[in-house]
């Protein structure tokens, strides 16, 4: 056979053919974990304009470059003080095992930042491990208890998430142990759906009343965040501000999930890059930029990503998948177990199976042992420290004494798409496609 004559179809590459054939044999959509695998414009398509003559940089290791951020300055009596602008995103106990939750809590606490609960409520271990804990208020209200609201440092009303805007969640039966089932008041072993919208409010006017209720229950102490999956980001941001949010969390389509339909993960939502810009524009139009804090998530991996999100106007970022990777998600260890799941390190998205080869997204005690919570905490701490250092380094190179002083003018885009989405000029030009 002449290999040169064998050509793959761009329309039907092997993974598409495989999916068609899986669908033909199973007759149901594919449910999986992780985030979008398709290529989308990202922060990689932006670069910083380091200072030289027209602007002067700060000395890398000597001159101060602050990283602190306060969330909840609008209404909360007790705003949250973060030492770094990088938080850990909401991930449920159930989706994650207890060791993973503990590792994230201790690692984040060591860096002076917050972690977030997820569906199913707050565990005692998690509260203990996290010096700053954000309590998610989700449509399913699994495990929702007013005492936990009162114990939280902030409340995040989740209206959607980047991996599945408009869709509910799913914790497959294979992951439901006695403890998870009890926390969610459901029988063991059944597929636990999480509703796509809240049971007792719809629309922005109701949301305003819901926020009032949560504030009344907690005596206006806690910052109230509103989280949305990035879609109509400008409108959603404006409406959340109007409804009285202290902070807005925008989760781009690269954001991960423990389990949902692939068509949601790949085909719904917009990338994080344009979402940040749209949210900032909305806040500026309302004269609420920096008054209502903006937290951005979805595919944040490096200090460069953090710095670029902040430069576009975010107050902080939130990381989910990357924090799991710090705990060894997709690491080349226990390779035979990846193979048993039909995958390999680097390509795993099998969180939905409950058989995580590295002991993160599992409730199986044997697999969980593979994640030592103390070592895990150290790894999370190291990773957050690295992101912070990288972000500071880039900020100093742009002459900034606080990472929040980074601004869109510090960046250019390498592609027309990124230039249009981020509203910064294409490198070497003054051109912002669609804007100038």
């Amino acid at each position: 056979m002449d290999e040169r004559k064998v050509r793959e179809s761009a329309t039907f590459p092997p993974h598409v053919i495989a999916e068609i054939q899986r669908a033909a044999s199973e007759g149901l959509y594919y449910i999986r974990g992780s985030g979008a695998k398709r290529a989308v414009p990202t922060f990689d398509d932006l670069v910083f304009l380091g200072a030289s003559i027209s602007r002067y940089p700060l000395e890398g290791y000597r001159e101060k470059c602050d990283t602190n951020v306060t969330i909840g300055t609008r209404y909360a009596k007790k705003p949250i003080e973060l030492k770094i602008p990088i938080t850990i995103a909401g991930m449920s106990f159930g989706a994650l095992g207890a060791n993973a939750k503990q590792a994230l809590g201790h690692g984040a606490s060591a860096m002076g930042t917050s972690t977030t609960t997820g569906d199913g409520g707050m565990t005692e271990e998690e509260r203990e491990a996290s010096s700053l804990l954000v309590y998610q208020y989700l449509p399913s209200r699994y495990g929702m208890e007013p005492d936990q609201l009162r114990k939280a440092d902030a409340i995040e009303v989740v209206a959607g998430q980047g991996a599945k805007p408009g869709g509910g969640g799913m914790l497959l039966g294979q992951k439901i142990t006695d403890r998870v089932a009890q926390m969610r008041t459901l029988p063991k072993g059944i597929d636990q759906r999480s509703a796509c919208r809240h049971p007792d409010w719809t629309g922005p006017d109701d949301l305003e009343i819901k926020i009032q209720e949560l504030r009344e229950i907690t005596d206006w102490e806690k910052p109230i965040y509103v989280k949305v999956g990035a879609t109509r980001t400008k409108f959603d941001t404006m409406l959340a501000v109007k409804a009285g949010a202290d902070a807005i969390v925008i989760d781009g389509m690269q954001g991960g999930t423990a389990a949902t339909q692939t068509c949601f993960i790949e085909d719904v939502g917009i990338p994080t890059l344009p979402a940040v810009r749209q949210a900032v524009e909305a806040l500026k139009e309302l004269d609420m930029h920096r008054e209502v804090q903006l937290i951005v998530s979805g595919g944040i991996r490096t200090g460069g990503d953090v710095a670029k999100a902040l430069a576009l106007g975010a107050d902080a970022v939130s990381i989910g998948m990357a924090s799991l990777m710090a705990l060894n998600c997709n690491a080349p260890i226990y390779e035979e177990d990846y193979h048993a799941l039909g995958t390999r390190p680097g390509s795993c998205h099998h969180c939905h199976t409950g058989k995580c080869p590295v002991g993160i997204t599992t409730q199986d005690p044997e697999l969980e042992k593979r994640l030592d919570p103390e070592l895990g905490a150290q790894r999370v701490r190291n990773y957050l420290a690295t992101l912070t250092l990288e972000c500071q380094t880039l900020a100093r190179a742009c002459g900034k004494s606080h990472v929040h002083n980074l601004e869109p003018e510090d960046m250019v885009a390498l592609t027309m798409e990124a230039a249009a989405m981020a509203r910064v000029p294409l490198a070497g030009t003054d051109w912002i496609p669609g804007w100038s």
Partner: protein
Amino acid sequence: MNTLDLERMAVRDVNQRLHDDAAGTNTDQQYEILNPMGRHAIAVGLNHPFDVTVRGHAGYYCGSMNKEATVTIEGNAGVGVAENIMSGTVHVTGYASQSAAATGHGGLVVIDGDASARCGISMKGVDIVVGGSVGHMSAFMAQSGNLVVCGDAGESFGDSIYEAQLFVRGSVESLGADCVEKEMRPEHVERVRGLLERAGIDADPAAFRRYGSARQLYNFKIGNIGYY
């Protein structure tokens, strides 16, 4: 009796007073809240065995997330009355709007009149007794607890229900996915009798029919494709 007048005090001050008193030494456990005038979030987040009477109509989320307290609304209640109640009692002497007792984990919610759509949505252990009828999609995704309806139930009753038990004396317009009628055995009659007694509603428990989950949609299966 402690009197809190919402014409003179803000909702914030009323709730703060109730929260502070729960933590303090006030020995008078009786409260009346005057002039609610449909205001939202009245008497929310109580966690002490107070006896609170709201004299008039309440807005959204009255008595929500209640623990231990007895809250009586002498009038109608807006959306999400007794939302996520944990224990204690919330009693509406009039009618209730949508999503009454939504996601309630425990305690008792009594509505003397009708309740609108989605009554008992995602209920997780609460007992609900409705003297009148309930609107469409009531007990949607109901996980645990009991819903007793003395009147009729609207369409898609008990859609995608889990382990909650539903009892209706009148007609059911239609049952939702995976909700089926089940045999009313003596223990169910006794259960309904007890709930009606606790609710102070006079009705014959033997006149009720029981509905619950067929448990066919608990796991994703190709055979269920028509339901999804």
